[in-house]
């Protein structure tokens, strides 16, 4: 059983059975408060920016360019980027292009399990406006309705070079303290949940996956 450090225990978790209700937390997520001293927060942001751990979850075509990115040719390790197999330890979620409804459910789960501050980069055209699959019955079109995205990189596929550029851009944004996607998610939690539940019809997981 997972104990959470959330604020209010008000989520309904209606998708769960009674038995499962006992196993999962029903707390709402809490926004990230910056450190009261600005210098500390800036320093923390600097450290965060220079140690970006990416969740190893290839959600779509974008995964194909993550491999060159992480290996010898582009060697993203140089920039403080590393892959992490578990969401608990990751701070960056790279959405690799389109998200089918089935994957979206896993993306939400993985995203919510990531510990803040966390950042999302959306790769390619599909998360922006549906891309190639704008008329597909199984892929979402506007990714920002389901998960807050901090940075979009357009392209199909975006090359590893532009991924490197994107990571640098994300670093700048984090250092400037402007990456507040996770907080947006908490503040507009009900809106996001409503959107998510609109497309995910078999909601059999807790409302917030702690």
């Amino acid at each position, binding site marked *: 059983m997972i104990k959470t450090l959330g604020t209010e225990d008000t989520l309904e978790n209606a998708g769960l059975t009674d038995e499962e209700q006992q196993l999962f937390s029903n707390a709402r997520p809490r926004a990230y408060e910056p450190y009261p001293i600005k210098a500390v927060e800036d320093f923390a942001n600097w450290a965060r920016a220079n140690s970006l751990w990416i969740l190893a979850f290839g959600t779509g075509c974008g995964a194909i360019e993550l491999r060159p990115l992480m290996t010898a040719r582009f060697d993203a390790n140089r920039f403080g980027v590393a892959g992490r197999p578990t969401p608990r330890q990751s701070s960056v979620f790279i959405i690799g292009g389109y998200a089918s409804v089935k994957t979206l459910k896993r993306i939400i789960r993985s995203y919510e399990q990531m510990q803040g501050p966390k950042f999302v980069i959306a790769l390619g055209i599909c998360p922006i*406006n549906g891309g*190639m699959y704008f008329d597909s019955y199984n892929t979402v079109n506007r990714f920002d309705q389901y998960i807050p995205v901090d*940075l*979009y990189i*357009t392209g199909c596929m975006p090359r590893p070079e532009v991924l490197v550029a994107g990571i640098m*851009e994300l670093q700048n*944004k984090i250092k400037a303290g402007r990456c507040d996607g996770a907080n947006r998610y908490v503040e507009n939690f009900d809106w996001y949940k409503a959107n998510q539940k609109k497309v995910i019809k078999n909601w059999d997981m807790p409302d917030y996956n702690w």
Partner: protein
Amino acid sequence: MNLRDLLSPFFVWQRAFEKPYTSIRPTIDRPGAPAYRGFHINVSEECVGCGSCHSICQNHAIDMVPAAEFEGRTGDSGLRPRFDYGRCCWCGLCVDICTAASLRMSNEYAWISEDPDEFHFTAGVDDKPWQNNEHGYRRAEGYHLYPPKRIEMDMLSPDESVQSFEEVARGYSEAQAKLEADRCVECGICVATCPAHMDVPDYIHSIRDGDYEKGLQLMYRTNPFPATCGRICTRRCESVCPVGILGEPVAIRWLKRFIVDQVDAKDYPRILNDQIIESGHRVAIIGAGPGGLSAAYYLRKKGHAVTVFEAGETAGGMLRYGVPSYRLPDADLDKDIAYIVSLGVDIRYNTRIGKDIDFEQLLQDYAAVFLSTGLSVPSNMRIQGEDHARVLSGLQVLADVASGRDPGIGSRVAVIGGGNVAMDAARVSRRLGAEVTILYRRRIADMPADEEEIHESQEEGCNIVPQAIPVEIIAADKPQQVSIKWGEAEMVQDPTGGRPRPVLQEDRMHTDTYDCIISAIGQGSDLDFLSKENQQQLAIEWGKFTPGEYQQSALQKVFVGGDVANRTADAISAIEDGHHAARGIERLLNPDGFTATQTDNTGEPA
């Protein structure tokens, strides 16, 4: 386990002493390949806004949006492609299909933003750093997504064609027509350029579908002379056809002709199914040329009783008298006219206004008058001796031939002028067995006649002498002959920027003798039937009207159109004038029920 398997892996360490694979500054050191399909470039001056990119884009990533600075250019829709980089997949099909080759791709590929709404831009209009990239994807030479060359039409060979007045262009076969119709990209820029705004892409579409009846219906919506226009139209549509920018334009005229040729005249009433509900109004039309009959057709469809007054013996006006039958056989002109007449249009032949019936009388008797008397008086060359008996007017020669009379040109003929009438006169003369020389003031490229006509005249053996200015007509030794004195001309650039002017070279003069000289340098109007008072009211300038809205003249009941009221003086403009005047007359007679044509401005192409 053997020792080799244990030791051999240590060879990995070899690599430690080699140069790393890593690219040191990936974002700087690695631009896209020279042919990389990166972000879009549009040379907006070359773009004509045909929207083919929009049509071919499977992701609906391209919107056509108005770009104010390109609005109203000839052959340009004024729209420019706007890209949604939340949709584009950089397949480059838009570049491949681009009719003007204005759309290209740069080798730039990096666009990062935190705002998902930002990924839009109008290429070539919005300022983007990659607009001037030299590298990037271009369509390869020899790669086409539509056939660039038009389907050649069968023509009589020049040797055969000079032998008779048989129609030179033989028409497309069904297979040929379908192949040619297939080349259309359905942009509709031609619709705007066509004076009559015919639904060109739609009727071409109907050819692809094999539904010629629908094609005929579509054509009659804007033009009751499809058989005629399918042969002799000046086809400004083809001059703006985007397919013609890199290849040859779609043969719109021949396709129009093809549709008409497929439909039998006796099926017209069934296909067009014009239901006439009599309105009780009476309208008079002066002149049974294309303008007058066009007005008659559309007015009749509105239920008005139409009376056409024609000075000649037959209807058709200039189409009948001015266009030789090897270009427009009488049967085809009759096909168009017969249908119009069959709707109940009353044509009074041999009735000249001012002589047989008074203009004032018409104004009193009829609810409205449409005036399209055309240009029937040949212009003068304004040189000495031009009233010589052997100086014939081109129009007269053509009219004589059309009516089956012998124009009496002899066997050696000079034609003065470079317009279509000149070419027709020359080619008619060839058919009558004469040896023809065409004298024209400027260069061949400056000739106002259709390029095709010039080409065919030459093929048929007419000798064109460009830059030849007639100076004087001199009586020849024999009475049945005449001499012309002409001088060579040099083209001089106009300092004010106009087109080059021919300047006579006094030292290079020639004098030649011919059996006759055919003057075909233009025509003027004959508006003597109008009283002085009327002429003043109608604001006639240089023998032409300046019509207002809906072709209405200064007199409320009088509408004008045709050659006498427009600058282009071609059949299709006259047809549109007639159609538009019909609209105006309808508005005058039935102000409550009238609605101007408004088309829904949204929506995607059908």
